């Protein structure tokens, strides 16, 4: 029996039993939809994370102080603070190009009031951190509009988001404005007012060091909003200014010696040196995270997630394969006499085996095709829903967390057909081994 004839034969048999074929393939459909969706989460997140991280540069090491795992540490003082002495030592490690330190404002400071030329607005302390643009947070999408960004030697002043100049601080009359408008604001005096829990206030005076295109959460919630509708300003405060704030807040002039910096970003000349430098920094008792390690950790989490969720799909496919086997056994029972006739006419065991295995594979493949289409549509729906939700929460970002690719589609189809083939193995074998005489007598 030629393969095309076998194929035609199997397809014709399935066409004659459309409803049963479709119902049986629904099990595979469910399994494949689940697996496609789950794997697409992995593909999507991995791609989003990787593209986000790639802006960071692989030659970067993020250094953090070490904290004791003991939660009885009320002031959250690090066991191994990132002190200026250690920073100096890190700078002297061979192959280190630069070290940019930063200080986080204490969580207890909810807001800092900023006042420029008589205009004032609150600044969320949480979002004011990151004295240098951190692509891990910004996704590499923040760039300077005027002035220069904070770096190893430049940690003074504040950098204000251009949009906030318009809709929070009302310092410019339109947005976006010409670069010259922003340049005129550089060096303008800035007063930052911090209030401590006892109600004491302290004013820190500095200047505008730069303007960037950063937007805070309130800006993002209202693109092009009119003045007065947005309260918080998007401001990044220089590490030196934040140092002054925390020294006052803790009444601790030797803050850096006692608690150290919150974070340092160490740049190494080439990637191959990253691990050696990181190891040396770890030798000081500090935490040193490299991007590959981060990627590795994140992808490990996603791998576990994917394995768990894919198991659900596999379970569905297991049930589906039992369904296919059942359908095939039924079909073979109904067609016993036909099998007997075919054998009398010269059909070999191989012919019968092939016919029924193909049929079972096609049921699987049909479920696979429907499942891939279903999974893809579900992905579109989930992406749309996720982004609609994010927008309703004020995040104007476009996340494509669910993504399919050719490997996933091809793999899913082959896998679905294979499930069918596997499920058809036993019934087809039974059919092939039927005694032709008994089959011919079958009513």
């Amino acid at each position, binding site marked *: 029996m030629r393969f095309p004839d076998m194929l035609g034969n199997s397809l014709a048999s399935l066409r004659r039993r459309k409803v049963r074929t479709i119902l049986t393939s629904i099990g595979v459909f469910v399994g494949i939809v689940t697996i496609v969706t789950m794997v697409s989460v992995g593909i999507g997140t991995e791609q989003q994370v990787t593209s986000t991280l790639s802006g960071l540069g692989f030659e970067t090491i993020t250094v953090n102080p070490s904290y004791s795992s003991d939660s009885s540490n009320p002031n959250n003082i690090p066991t191994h603070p990132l002190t200026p002495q250690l920073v100096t030592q890190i700078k002297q490690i061979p192959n280190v190009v630069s070290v940019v330190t930063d200080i986080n404002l204490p969580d207890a400071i909810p807001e800092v009031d900023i006042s420029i030329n008589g205009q004032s607005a609150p600044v969320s302390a949480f979002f004011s951190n990151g004295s240098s643009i951190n692509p891990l947070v910004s996704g590499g999408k923040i760039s300077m509009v005027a002035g220069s960004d904070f770096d190893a030697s430049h940690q003074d002043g504040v950098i204000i988001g251009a949009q906030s100049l318009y809709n929070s601080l009302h310092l410019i009359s339109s947005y976006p404005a010409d670069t010259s408008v922003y340049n005129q604001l550089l060096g303008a005096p800035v007063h930052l007012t911090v209030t401590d829990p006892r109600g004491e206030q302290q004013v820190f005076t500095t200047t505008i060091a730069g303007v960037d295109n950063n937007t805070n959460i309130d800006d993002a919630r209202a693109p092009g909003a009119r003045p007065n509708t947005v309260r918080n300003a998007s401001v990044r405060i220089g590490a030196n200014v934040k140092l002054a704030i925390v020294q006052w807040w803790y009444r601790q002039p030797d803050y850096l010696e006692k608690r150290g910096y919150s974070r340092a970003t160490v740049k190494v000349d080439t990637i191959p040196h990253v691990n050696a430098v990181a190891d040396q920094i770890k030798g000081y008792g500090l935490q040193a995270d490299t991007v590959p390690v981060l990627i590795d950790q994140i992808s490990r989490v996603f791998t576990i997630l994917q394995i768990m969720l894919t198991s659900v799909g596999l379970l569905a496919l297991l049930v589906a394969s039992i369904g296919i086997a059942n359908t095939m056994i039924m079909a073979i029972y109904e067609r016993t006499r036909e099998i007997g006739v075919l054998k009398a006419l*010269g059909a070999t065991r191989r012919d019968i085996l092939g016919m029924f295995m193909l049929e079972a594979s096609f049921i699987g493949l049909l479920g696979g095709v429907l499942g891939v289409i279903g999974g893809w549509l579900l992905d579109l729906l989930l992406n749309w829903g996720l982004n609609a939700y994010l927008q309703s929460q004020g995040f104007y970002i476009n996340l494509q967390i669910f993504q399919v690719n050719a490997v996933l589609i091809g793999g899913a189809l082959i896998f679905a057909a294979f499930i069918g083939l596997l499920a058809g193995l036993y019934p087809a074998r039974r059919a092939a081994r039927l005694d032709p005489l008994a089959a011919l007598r079958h009513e």
Partner: protein
Amino acid sequence: MRETNVDNPIIRLVNLTRRYKVGPNVVEAVARIDLEIATGEFVALMGASGSGKSTLLNLLGGLDTPTNGEVWVGDVNLATAKRNVLDQHRQHTVGFVFQSFNLLPTRTALENVEMPMLLVGERPAARRTRARELLAQMGLAQRSDHLPNALSGGEQQRVAIARALANNPRILLADEPTGNLDSKNGAEVMRILRALNQERGLTLIVVTHDPAVAAYADRVVRLLDGNIVEISANPTPPTEATPLLTSMTGKLQEVRV
């Protein structure tokens, strides 16, 4: 009389035995039969039900394997043949005609006739042409695209005969071919079978319990309880003035066999 030897035998049964287990009992459906059938002979196997005549036919067709003895068809002993040899035997050497026609109900007359050719890997165009030819010979050219249930019993059996001839077998095995037909259609089927035997030299073995059917045969083998009880040469097998198939289709002799 036990005239078991013939000249130029195509089939030779030697001490052929087939036993079945039926519950706790062993039934000897065919018991130590010796028989030869000549090439081109028309043999009727007669007997009551349970006499072993159908078992004998199935053994000849390679659908059943003997418990003992030899089944020589040409120079192949089916009793010891491997499965692929038996497949070949069913594909090319014998053609089956059944009492209940056994057409594939979901396929048209044409597709039914094509099936044996499809199973041996014949190309679609070639097998379609041959199937149409065979149906035309059976006078069914106009019925070739009908499903079996749209055909009369006589038509169905003629489709089945066309199907049995598809791969040019040397032997046609018919199990009660007229059993489900009225006398008129039964007679027509028998005339066709007789003509195939006479005009093409097809060896024909027909199982029947109908003396009217047996009357067409050259020899009648009577079976009882698995044994041959009588072999009688038909003194006057019906000879026709004009070949039947030729009168039916007008041009059978030109058709390749």
